[in-house]
């Protein structure tokens, strides 16, 4: 399992973290169409490329962190 570098705790086993999902913006609830809202719910970039993700350092500092990771290589950008 890869190492993730937490800005608070340093390099830790990915097993200490929960993957939450790709970072995405919540549409404005008062205006969102079904199409937009379901896009927010279900569609993902899923590119084999650099992707901004939300992770939770569950067994560490308990912070939710943005991690930029290459989904092709699992490299993490510092």
């Amino acid at each position: 399992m890869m190492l993730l570098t937490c800005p608070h705790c340093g390099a830790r086993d990915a097993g200490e973290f929960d993957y939450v999902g790709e970072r995405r913006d919540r549409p404005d609830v008062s205006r969102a169409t079904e199409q937009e809202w379901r896009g927010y719910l279900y569609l993902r970039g899923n590119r084999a490329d650099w992707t901004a993700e939300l992770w939770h350092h569950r067994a560490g500092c308990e912070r939710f962190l943005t991690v930029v990771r290459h989904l092709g290589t699992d490299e993490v950008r510092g």
Partner: protein
Amino acid sequence: MRLPPQPGEAIDRTTAFTFTWDGRSYPAYAGDTIASALAAAGVRVFSRSLKYHRPRGLLTADFHDPGCLVQVGDEPNVRAAHRRVEPGMTVRPQAVWPSLRWDVKSANQLVGKALTAGFYYKTFIKPRPLWPAYERVLRRFSPGGEVPAEPPDGRYDQRYAHPDVLVAGGGPAGLAAALAAAEAGLQVLLVDEQHELGGHLLWGDDGDRAALRDLRGAVAAADGIEVLTDAVVTGRYDGGRVVVLQRSAPGVVERLVKARPRVLVAAPGLIERPYVVAGNDLPGVLLSTAARRLVNRYAVRPGQRAVVLTANNSGDAAVGDLTRAGVDVRRVLDARRGDDVVRVRGRRGVRAVECSDGSTVACDLLVTAVGWTAPTSLLTMAGGRSRYLASAARFVPADLPDDVLAAGGIVGDGSTADLVAHGRAVGHEAARRARGLPPAHVADLEPGPHPELFHGRSNGIVDLAEDVSADDLRAAVAEGYDSIELVKRYTTATMGPTQGKLEAVNTIAVVAAATGRSIEETGTTTGRPPYVPVSLGVLAGRRYQPVRRSPMHTWHVEHGATPLVAGAWIRPDHYGDPAGEVCAVRQGVGIIDVTPLGKLALHGPDVADLLELLYVNRWRKLAVGSVRYGVMCTEDGVVLDDGVTGRLGEDRYLMTTTSSGATTVEHWVERWLQTERPHWQVHLVPMTDAYASINVAGPRSRELVGRLTDIDLAPEAFPYMRVRLGRVAGVADCVVWRIGFTGELSFELHVPAAFGQRVWEALLEVGADLGVRPFGVEAQRILRLEKGHLIVGQDTDGLTQAYGAGLDWAVKLDKDDFVGKPELAWQRARDDYLVLVGLQPVDPAVVPPESCQIIEDGQRIVGRVTSSRMSPTLDRAVCLGLVAARLSEPGTTVTVLLPDGRRVPVLVMPQLAHVDPEGVRLRG
């Protein structure tokens, strides 16, 4: 035959003992491997081959030897040429019937030609009904040892390690690398697969042994080197994790060391390659390193009369060793001069060798030294590559990550002094890199020239473990399976216990020749962990399985509770009589341990905003001292959790969640706070474990709790859905809610955890005259079902949105925003979903098992029973169920299909509650 004492021998002749092989007793010395002891006693056949059941003997005489996998006691597939023999050990051959000597399955040799690549796929196709019978026969031909019926004795262990440098391989290069890194002041973990440090020097000549003595002395004297022998690096995984399997660790069967070195130095040396030629699998065909090991380490004379095929100095040295051991070396074929072996003759073992000059030499031993394979898979699984070097006839490592270095034979060739020098240089560089310095180049050890010798002119076995011949590979290519990956999968070459260490390069060479491509173009298959097989036992280690227990756990155990595994928690399911427990609650009073309920303290001025956002219902007007039931949904409107939340002070709330949802909700709240509303002033403090939680339920609960608390429990002073703080049984800082999951008047006590058992026992003691009884989760399930309270995840599923759960009354679509609002707004406009309703079978004695389907027109599914019990209170079956919205009108009769096939009518009730729908009891 055992030779007189050899200068470098591994055996201790002062400790002799016996063990059994195939039912007979054999002598051995301490230090012998199973195979060396047997070879010394003249045993030549150790196993039968996979497909043709041909006799097989020693080939490499080390861990990787494909011909000597044996059963030791209850352990299958033991590597007999590596495992040290122990007094009294019981060793058996594997997968032979009736015996190793007369194996019936060797009849396969007769149809050998038909058992070519992929023969399975071409036969047994018809008639179809016979296939299961064919399959049973096929399975009987599978190889391997036996797993025992009972768990084996002994424990396995694991540990983490953080050396600066980990050196894999303790030959001259690895020893020197370790020394150089340690001299630089670093912590080094030096790991070698053999039982002693030294690599190939162990079976070398006097000069080798002298060099080894010096190196071992220096290692022993050095600060900062931890040595693990009989330990093997099984892989380097992501994140730089290097895994070491320690086979002999004191006190345990095996240990897995999970190291994260700053730098890995791979110094595993080279693996000698067999030669592919007819008869190359006969007992008596040995690699040169094997012959040297047997003679020099185990004082075993491997045969009487030998032919040696040599293309390098290892073969040359073997000639010397054999001669010294009294073997009659009848012929030395020098491949560098074009000499070759045409075929090996014999049935149970080598009888003669046909040479390329047309002569046939009678002998019982053929020793070959035709080339080396660098164990690059160890590095390619770490993200490196390998590159084919035709001049050296082997693959070499390429493009290693910065934190991996290779040293010694895996890189190139040289004298012992060259290997040591290279090891030192690499060790020095490893130390620099471990200190964080930028990588510098280490002068390469050049691989020496070597002829490309892979297969001869006759058809031999390429993969000895899988019994795949060169012709099989060629046939696969001819049938269109022409890439190396397809050849592998079609023939299973390289898929056996050696995983390509011996056979991969020969496989590639045969395929390259058959396709007309070069070895480089043909490429390798993917190397994957583990480098050598690793037991399930050691992978599981101490088998940690976390358990959560409430402060009253011991009490429950002592009082006969039947345990219920509820996720991480162990809870009392019941104390012997769940129906009786229900009656106690309905008629008197009962207490239940509800400690696993999630409890989250929420503090700060913006908590009300948070609750408005995360719950579908309204919170802003919740007064201090009040509690309210709330429902949370995810953004798709699906019910996530429910619970009550109370306002304990101006800016102070306590949220409860379901037991199974506690962690999810805690993270869910944190996530919204940290990522979507970071400006809100709310602190969440998890308090689940801070309190022992006890629900006191039943008409006499007020009386019972009243005896133990100074809180005024009078209905006017402490009405339904309120919270009070105070003392219970002398314990300060208790939180008391008046709520009613069971449908009865009830008080939920949250007691500082250390005092949980004290309060629990006090309740039972002072309530004895009220008939107080403990009740378990089962009684609670019945009680809440009678009351029609849903359980998220049981009465809802992964698609149940709030309206489907019958929570219309809670959803406030007029709020500006809350999580899941858009979906719920859309759901309300539809009617194509299932709705949760109360159900009662028309026949009160029929209790449909949970998950029974509700059907229409014979078999169309229109819902299902989600909860179902015999109600001790009503003395009839009561249920909850999800039904199509159009069937949810009270009074509708639906049909439930029972597992036994009966179809029973069931009535849709006007409300979810079966008992006290008006709520008189809990408000009382």
